């Protein structure tokens, strides 16, 4: 992991929800600080205890984390997607009138909060800004919670296609025309389809939607440029991905899918980190000694111990199969389930130790 940290400027921690991505991202940041770098961890929705450990109080401001025994610096910042989306529109709109038109649109609020891709887009905008500020040696992005790791990669393209000119142009109307009146610009097939759409959704919805797109035409150049520059940043050879995953068969399959996806898209995947794979007492033990020691425990506890040993043995077999299958193309690291508080800085430091020593 040290090599990965030293040879990159951006590390993107991807993975589906609930796998401990933020904790891993913070640990990588801590390790970078130990290696003498000035590192920033960008996270969108940290668990409160982790936020407290890092000293994050409010979104939108980078804070320096008070780390011991590190020659470098660790900074952390929480991203507020609504705020960044608003800011982005304020910064790119040509005038206040356009800003108001967008923000007053009834569909805007839904868009900025519920549209899949908007959190990813704002994270990328933030990442881009942090990198181009030149303030940090390394920026680590903890990707927004998503159902699948690949959602993150699809997001910029989704947003881009939303803002590209071909979508907005159907809504451009001439003076005096009612909103939603786009019949002139499109061919007959599209007319039929849009007519059906209007019938289903109602004219009020179409009116709001067309207002929204019209207001956005003012921004589309900037959004297009931003989409391209963030994409360029993600495929840069100083940028790499780390996939954090939990340990079960469906998640391991997802890791493989994600890997293929990255390779096809020209991104680099530095490592797959299987988080909380085994408890420390199991991972670090000699199996024979452990089995023998279990025998000496009182009845109920002995049964409990044997049950868990069998269970983790079966999991270890699953893992071995996965490893044999993918070890050539993937660098896989397992992290144990820590039997202590993983949220304090000490917990992060222990994870950082495992990250640097437990490479297979």
């Amino acid at each position: 992991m040290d090599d990965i940290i030293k040879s990159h400027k951006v590390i993107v921690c991807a993975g589906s929800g609930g796998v401990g991505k933020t904790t891993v991202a913070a640990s990588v940041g801590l390790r970078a600080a130990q290696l003498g770098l000035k590192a920033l961890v960008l996270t969108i929705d940290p668990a409160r205890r982790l936020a407290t450990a890092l000293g994050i109080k409010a979104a939108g401001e980078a804070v320096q984390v008070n780390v011991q025994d590190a020659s470098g610096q660790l900074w952390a910042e929480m991203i507020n997607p609504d705020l960044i989306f608003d800011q982005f529109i304020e910064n790119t709109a040509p005038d206040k009138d356009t800003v108001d038109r967008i923000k007053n649109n009834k569909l805007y609020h839904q868009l900025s909060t519920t549209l899949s891709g908007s959190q990813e887009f704002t994270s990328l905008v933030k990442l881009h800004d942090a990198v181009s500020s030149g303030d940090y040696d390394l920026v680590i992005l903890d990707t927004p919670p998503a159902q699948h790791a690949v959602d993150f990669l699809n997001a910029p393209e989704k947003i881009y296609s939303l803002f590209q000119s071909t979508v907005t142009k159907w809504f451009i109307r001439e003076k005096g025309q009612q909103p939603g009146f786009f019949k002139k610009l499109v061919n007959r097939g599209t007319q039929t389809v849009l007519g059906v759409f209007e019938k289903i959704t109602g004219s009020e919805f179409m009116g709001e939607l067309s207002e929204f797109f019209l207001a956005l035409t003012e921004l589309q150049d900037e959004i297009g440029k931003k989409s391209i520059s963030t994409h360029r940043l993600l495929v840069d050879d100083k940028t790499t991905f780390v996939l954090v995953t939990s340990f079960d068969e469906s998640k391991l399959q997802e890791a493989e899918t994600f890997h293929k996806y990255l390779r096809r898209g020209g991104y680099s995947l530095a490592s797959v980190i299987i988080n909380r794979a085994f408890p420390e007492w199991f991972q670090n033990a000699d199996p024979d000694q452990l089995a023998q020691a279990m025998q000496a425990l009182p009845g109920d506890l002995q049964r409990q111990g044997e049950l868990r040993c069998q269970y983790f043995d079966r999991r270890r077999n699953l893992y071995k199969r996965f490893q044999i299958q993918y070890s050539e193309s993937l660098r896989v690291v397992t992290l144990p389930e820590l039997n202590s508080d993983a949220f304090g800085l000490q917990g992060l430091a222990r994870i950082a130790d495992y990250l640097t020593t437990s490479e297979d």
Partner: protein
Amino acid sequence: MSREFTNKQKLFFVSGKGGVGKSLTSAALALDMARSGKKVLLVELGDARFFSRSFQLEDRGAEPTPWKDGVDVAAWEGEACLREYILHYVKVAAIADLFFENSVMKSLVRAAPALNELAIIGKATSGVRNFAAPMPYDAIVVDSYATGHFLALLKAARGMYEAVKFGPMGRHSSDIDQVLCDPEHTKYVIVTLPEELPVSETLELQKSLNDDFKATPTVFVNKCQFLGATENLPSSAEVPEAAKGFVAEMDRIKNVETEARQRLQKEAAASVDGPFVFSVDPAEVAEGLHPATRGLWTTS
């Protein structure tokens, strides 16, 4: 504005923090109802195909596929649900096809806020609303998204209704929202682990469901390791060296679990404990969990 829905179909939404075992809890719940003679549709959202892969079934997407006696599984994706909705309106498949093959429309559907969410939640509530083709099930169990995304899904209808009051879109949205707020039709289950963070997130979700949907969710505490009477753990001096780590870990889990369950007892409106099923086979886990899920539906 409120309408009366007489269809008796029950709708269960299962949510919770990522990684707590939502899918297998949903499967166990469906299985348990089926074992009592109900006909159940177990639905997953999105394209992960967790159920068909885990239970080694043929992947037929939204088409119900039999899993166990009385349980069919299906995977619903936003776009497919939207297509179904549109087909219901235009009646002619060729026009619906045209709709989705049209590149202008494709981008528009992707871009229009919350349209996919609305289509999914519309399909889930369509039985109760007697809208479109009936789904012949006593209950539909929706293995839903994790907390944040789940709330966005539920709020899609209200957001749309607030933005657009008139036209078919406004009317449907209002009906959907009404069903989601009606405890006669819609039940919410929050799955959690007996640990501090998932429990905190559970209580936050409970509050949101309470505030926004007047709903009282039942909490399912998955993977409890200390159910029933447990003897005291031996002191460290009595434990052989090689098992010390194990005993210390059990001690830690016991404390964390006790604390989490006490907190839920105090702050959750209703909670049901489920055991840790020590199996790596998903079907076995669902089988092991199903008796524990009875409390999620029999009280209703």
